[in-house]
């Protein structure tokens, strides 16, 4: 509340201001108090201006933080195509499991083929042994010799297939390892921006709360403003009064204080006036009528 201009009191018309000011104590009051008053008013204005500017800055800062928080994608709707981390993990696991299943089926098929091959070789061995047993050594027919050669060739092939299978297994294991590493790296790459976004949102929410607390704290400037206004107004009133009243009685003092108390706007001012224990108001109560 801006201070009212210092008003003249109802001085008797017959008394010239020069005569009033001639009195030492009254002159001191009329000269000194206005200086105090100007200091108080200047300080009040400076605080008001400073806090106002500060609040404007906080306001802009708050808007910026809120804007950043809103820009940060927090849902699939905010960034189409970007899925959350658990979904990515689930898809990766699904792909890997399917790949492993296919490899497993291939392994089993090869194992079965190898087993069949081994069994066939055993049967051939048995047939050859039976034939050899049923014929004299000098009468072993040529087909049996060819059978023996074929059996050796098949055995060689079986060994080759087994070796190839082992090599395939090793290659597949290696490929699977690479696939796992690549997918993990991909997951980490995808997770990094999401983690940053979460952190940004959390930070944004925290700063917003901090700013609300700052705004709440800065409102106490309003209480300071009102008290300074009261004191400065009373200084002006006191100066006026002193110019017109040579002697003050206790009743004057009581009237004065009662008038001062009437101007108070806060309970804490009234408590302070009477030297009562002062509990600063926490404010913030809302009452609906």
């Amino acid at each position, binding site marked *: 509340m801006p201070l009212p201009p210092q008003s003249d009191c109802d001085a008797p018309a017959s008394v010239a201001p020069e005569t009033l000011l001639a009195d030492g104590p009254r002159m001191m009051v009329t000269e000194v108090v206005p200086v105090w008053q100007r200091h108080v008013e200047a300080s009040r204005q400076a605080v008001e201006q400073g806090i106002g500017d500060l609040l404007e800055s906080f*306001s802009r800062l708050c808007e910026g933080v809120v804007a950043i928080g809103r820009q940060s994608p927090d849902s699939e709707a905010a960034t189409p195509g970007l899925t959350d981390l658990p979904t990515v993990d689930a898809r990766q696991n699904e792909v890997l499991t399917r790949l492993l299943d296919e490899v497993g089926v291939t392994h089993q098929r090869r194992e079965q083929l190898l087993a069949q091959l081994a069994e066939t070789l055993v049967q051939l061995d048995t047939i050859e042994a039976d034939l050899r047993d049923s014929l004299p050594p000098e009468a072993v027919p040529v087909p049996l010799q060819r059978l023996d050669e074929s059996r050796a060739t098949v055995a060689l092939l079986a060994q080759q297939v087994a070796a190839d299978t082992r090599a395939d297994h090793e290659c597949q294991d290696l490929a699977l390892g690479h696939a796992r590493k690549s997918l993990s790296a991909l997951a980490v790459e995808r997770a990094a921006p999401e983690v940053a976004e979460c952190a940004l949102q959390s930070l944004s929410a925290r700063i917003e709360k901090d700013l609300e607390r700052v705004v709440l704290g800065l409102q106490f400037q309003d209480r300071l403003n009102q008290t300074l206004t009261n004191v400065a107004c009373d200084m002006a009133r006191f100066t006026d009064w002193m110019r017109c009243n040579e002697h003050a009685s206790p009743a004057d003092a009581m009237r004065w204080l009662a008038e001062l108390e009437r101007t108070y706007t806060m309970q804490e001012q009234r408590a302070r006036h009477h030297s009562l224990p002062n509990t600063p108001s926490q404010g913030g109560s809302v009452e609906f*009528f």
Partner: protein
Amino acid sequence: MTTCKTILVIDDSSSFRTVVKLALQKAGYTVVEAVDGEDAVAQLDTAPPDLIVCDVNMPRMDGLSFARHVKTTELHRFTPIIMLTTESQEAKKAEGRAAGVRAWITKPFQPSQLVDAVARLCP
């Protein structure tokens, strides 16, 4: 969040008007300002508000006088008024209630409290 509601904020402290403006604008309201009751009376018809947030102690025309004035006007008598003040005396609150004030908030206030009260009285 945006609303089409306009709130008239009356306070002689510019810094406090900034506080209130910050809280309400953030909630999506449009804010117009007045420095005291007389200034607000002059602005009422040019920018009719949906709700008024008013301080009590102001120069020229105080908040309670302004509230009484508003309730005598044909156009604005149903406009809800919230008093936002350091004043917490029951006698003052009773004056406010008699003047047609709908809510009394004691400074300092939480921005969310003000926004909630505004939303409740101006849905």
